[in-house]
């Protein structure tokens, strides 16, 4: 019984958190390391996302997708223009809006951003 009492007393003594003069300073050091780690992590993820997006987009374009997309885009632009002409026969701003080349490159830029975002998101979830 005395042994058990002593063991309990020892556990209490171990559990006592001794007051330390630099408690706040210690906590600040830990939080500083956490903040630095977090910033570095975000930078790495952002950079990896950007690189991943560019690589993915370049692979798509190198595979000849750009030419096919431009052709398809021109075809769809013509169809879109024709459709819109029926709706608004007097709108002379339509050809500028639906010019195929501009649409392809705008879509490509958006695809790079989307791929970069997707890669960054995937990395941050790991």
């Amino acid at each position: 019984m005395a042994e058990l009492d002593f063991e309990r007393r020892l556990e209490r003594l171990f559990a006592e958190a001794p007051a330390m003069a630099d408690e706040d300073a210690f906590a600040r050091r830990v939080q500083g390391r956490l903040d630095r780690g977090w910033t570095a992590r975000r930078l790495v993820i952002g950079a990896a996302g950007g690189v991943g997006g560019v690589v993915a987009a370049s692979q798509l374009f190198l595979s000849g997708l750009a030419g096919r997309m431009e052709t398809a885009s021109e075809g769809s632009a013509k169809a879109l223009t024709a459709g819109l002409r029926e709706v608004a026969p007097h709108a002379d701003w339509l050809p500028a809006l639906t010019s195929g080349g501009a649409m392809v490159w705008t879509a490509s830029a958006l695809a790079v951003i989307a791929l970069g975002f997707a890669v960054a998101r995937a990395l941050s979830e790991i």
Partner: protein
Amino acid sequence: MAGARYANLHDVELAAHAAAGDRSAFGELVRRHGGGVRALLRRMGAAAEADDLAQDAFLTAFERIAEFRGEGTFAGWVKRIAARQYLRRLQRRRRLKALVAGVEEGDPPAPGDADGRIDLDESMKALGSGERLCVSLCFGAGFSHAEAAEALNLPLGTVKSHVKRGLEKLRARLAPSEDSAAEGNDAHG
């Protein structure tokens, strides 16, 4: 730094905030329990590197905060992490074997304070390194004898012997008046 808005929150609530990415809430947990973790590491024998080890333990705890579900105390959970990290560091430096084999007498305890009381830290110095590690793990970090044996790569019987001898030495040195000092000293959370 963790502001007053965290002062009234329980450790489990703070841990939930931290798990959601609130680093200030975790800072409050560090402020509350940093002393206890550092003290445990010093009692285990870490001395000069105790603060670095404690910082590493808290960083690990933040990374694994989602694993803390409040079944035990947050302090106990971090102490286990810190103890295991210290043992791993000793193992990497090939010092663990020599330490756990150490049964030699430690330093003689310093004289007690004005009331004739000798505190736990001073008493722990009188233990051999193996006894100190085993007693700290079992009574400070909440390891069972079997867990300590596994962590120290020692036979269970050896751990029990270290603990028994360590307790005998501590009992001889800790004045009974510490009973009253220990009462009412509940750990936070």
